[in-house]
């Protein structure tokens, strides 16, 4: 695809748009940017593009701009059916998403992961597993670095692993992963899609160009997902938490089994697994399945299964100390997220919660706290309110700092217990953001020394 002197319009700036502009300018295209936001709100993006010969149309889209372009590249944030895009398409002007543009220049086999939930964990896991096997891999897409940024590099890696959202899949034409994984489909993003069928259709676009040499990894437990097994051209391989599958990964005798097309079975142990929750087992099976297709040796995969701490701040394993395990779930800023985290543990929990109240109802936590939480340390502005709502259900203390909370929890813990930071509140009363809160928590935990330490009460 030759971009030299082509008039290319980039719609929507943000991070991906910036990367696309850079790439296009680097290929000698005459780039124009159109963004609905005024210049004032795009400060950082404009600064990042300073010095590049780019034309601007900010604060709204005009039709002539769209109709004059040779090619239109759309950022993930922009709906594909807005009027100027529809008109341009009607005029025969090619309209593509950023991943479609990138895929035209991609020279490495692509593993693309999509689904409503678990994309990031699975993408990260596959990256880790490939690296553990001694294969180099670029990991990005919807997370981290956009694909378009990668194709501007020399592309020395053996594999490209990309998280792809359904927004990015719209506006793909020739996008063709070597291995695609569709993890699950639930009713999310209905704000953007006119109906659920449209959303399912968008997800299915990941398979549209795959042929018999390619693979689709599908969740056999989710009918909206496994229906694609009957529709795709490529080879299908399944994973299931509910039943054995002839070819693919499934749960068996407390571990994960992978069965190849040759009937050979490989077993993976979950004894040292650090990540929590049923959804993470599905992510893990999807990752194992993809990596077994890539020809990874099972021992290397087992190493990643044993060590992978999870995504930072999302039920992230931090440390084992005197038989007590610490998890950082700083991103659990609402009640629903904390419910999910609490059900992930069969062991007694010492919970650290609190921060700035988001105005939610703490009711859904009551039963879980009564059943599973051995002690609770509350911090931040919300501590009085949370104490009132939940304090009577378990031993509860109100402390002033995160340090005090961690020390109190550790002093109460016996071997086999879990210390969990899962605040159910935002962090802004005491921290810059949830990341800083999580990092602070981890550094306190790393600083703990032996069980003789008893924190201030």
């Amino acid at each position, binding site marked *: 695809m030759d971009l030299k002197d082509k008039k290319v319009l980039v719609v929507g700036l943000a991070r991906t748009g910036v990367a696309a502009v850079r790439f296009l300018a680097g290929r000698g295209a005459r780039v124009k940017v159109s963004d609905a936001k005024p210049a004032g709100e795009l400060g950082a993006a404009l600064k990042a593009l300073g010095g590049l010969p780019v034309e601007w149309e900010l604060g709204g889209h005009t039709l002539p701009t769209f109709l004059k372009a040779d090619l239109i590249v759309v950022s993930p944030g922009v709906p594909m059916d807005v009027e100027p895009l529809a008109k341009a398409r009607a005029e025969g002007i090619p309209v593509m998403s950023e991943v479609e543009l990138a895929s035209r220049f991609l020279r490495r086999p692509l593993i693309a992961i999509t689904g409503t939930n678990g994309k990031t964990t699975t993408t990260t896991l596959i990256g880790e597993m490939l690296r553990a096997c001694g294969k180099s891999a670029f990991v990005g897409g919807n997370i981290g670095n956009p694909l378009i940024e990668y194709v501007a590099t020399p592309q020395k890696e053996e594999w490209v692993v990309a998280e792809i959202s359904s927004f990015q899949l719209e506006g793909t034409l020739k996008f063709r992963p070597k291995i695609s994984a569709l993890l699950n489909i639930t009713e999310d993003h209905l704000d953007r899609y006119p109906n659920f069928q449209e959303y399912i259709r968008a997800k299915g676009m990941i398979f549209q160009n795959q042929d018999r040499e390619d693979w689709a990894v599908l969740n056999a437990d*989710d*009918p909206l997902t496994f229906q694609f*097994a*009957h529709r795709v051209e490529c080879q299908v391989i*399944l994973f299931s938490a509910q039943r054995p*599958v*002839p*070819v693919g990964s499934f749960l068996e005798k407390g571990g994960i089994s992978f*069965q190849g097309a040759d009937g050979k079975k490989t077993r993976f142990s979950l004894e040292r697994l650090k990540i929590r929750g049923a959804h993470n087992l599905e992510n893990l099976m999807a990752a194992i399945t993809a990596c077994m297709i890539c020809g990874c040796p099972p021992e290397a995969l087992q190493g990643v299964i044993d060590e992978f701490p999870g995504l930072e701040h999302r039920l992230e394993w931090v440390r084992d100390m005197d038989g007590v395990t610490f998890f950082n779930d700083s991103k659990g800023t609402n009640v629903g997220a904390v419910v999910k985290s609490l059900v992930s543990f069969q062991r007694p929990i010492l919970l650290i919660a609190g921060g700035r109240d988001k105005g939610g109802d703490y009711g859904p936590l009551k039963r879980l706290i009564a059943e599973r939480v051995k002690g609770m340390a509350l911090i931040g502005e919300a501590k009085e309110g949370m104490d009132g709502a939940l304090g009577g259900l378990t031993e509860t203390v109100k402390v002033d700092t995160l340090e005090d909370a961690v020390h109190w929890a550790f002093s109460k813990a016996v071997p086999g217990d879990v210390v969990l930071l899962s605040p159910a509140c935002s962090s802004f009363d005491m921290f810059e953001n949830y990341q800083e809160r999580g990092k602070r928590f981890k550094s306190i935990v790393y600083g703990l020394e032996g069980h003789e330490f008893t924190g201030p009460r």
Partner: protein
Amino acid sequence: MSSGRRFDPLLLVTTMILVSLGIIMVYSASFVIAGQRFGDSYHFLKKQAMAAALGIGLMFFVTKMNYHRWQILALPLLALSGLLLGILILPGLRHEIGGSARWLRFSFLSFQPAELAKLALVIYLARSLTKKEGKMKSFKMGFLPHVIVLGVLFALVLKQPDFGTGIVLAALVFLLLFAAGTRLLFLGSAVLAAVPAFFYLATRAHYRMERLLIYLNPWNDPSNAGFQIIQSFLAFGAGKVFGVGLGDGRQKLFYLPEVHTDFIFSVIGEELGLVGVTVVIGLFVFLIIRGFRACYRAPDLFGTYLALGMTLLIAIQTFLNMGVVMGLLPTKGSTLPFISYGGTSLMISLMAVGILLNISSQGGELRDENHHRRGGDGRASLPGPGSHGSF
């Protein structure tokens, strides 16, 4: 061979096509599972081909056997079926597969007595209805004995439990009684009386109610009870007009326990498409028409009832199976004659064809109306249009 006439060649050819197609489809549906479970992807193919060879042998034997001899065998066969079904559910001998006890095992051979019971019931009915010609209006003579026999067999198969076979047996009895001219009042009251019993049975075994409800909307429980029927829908959908190609179906990516037995029709839909499905339905319709032809031309009343019963046996099972697989009827175990994997079912179906062939070889040209026997109220011993009009 009184007339020395040739048996119906079209009936034979249609049967052989269906059996061959069955063997191919059983292989296509089962080779992945067979390869992994037995280390031999031909496992089910071999067993089905052996059963077919044996069944075809039996069919030719039966074709050569004067069908009047079945009159003598009727009661012993019925008694044998009852005995075997009884053995099956004896606590000490119960051998369960998937929650039901349907097979008798003798070392390497296994046998499904319920299949024999279907055949024996038809022969018994043909004999009994012939003997009671003219008394069919009587409740005590024409109705009660047959319903009692049905009741015993029904109770025995239900004990396995095998609700599907029970439905087939009941349908056979009612349709044959109807053809023989029983008072509609008896049949109607029996059906009405069966409604509460049916409801009780459906609600008592929780999986049965589950199946009943799930067929209305399988997507309510897609990971459990609805899984198989959803797969079946997807398979038909994927097959479109010409199918995805023999052996290329995607149902074998899942362990679907019944895909080469009860759900084989969905594999045909998937791999051979609407065209394949239409051809198979066409073959069955043709076979059933030839069966009715044998019935119509039979030299005597016993031959008429026997041919009608054998034809209905195939027709009812075909209709039930296709209905279940296409989601028009609640899910329950029933095989597609000639095609589904299962030796006993295949051999019994082939024997039924053998009997039809023998009757056809003894039949004359279309007889005039006077010669043709009728029930007392003028209902002919011919099938009503509804018997096969459902296709």
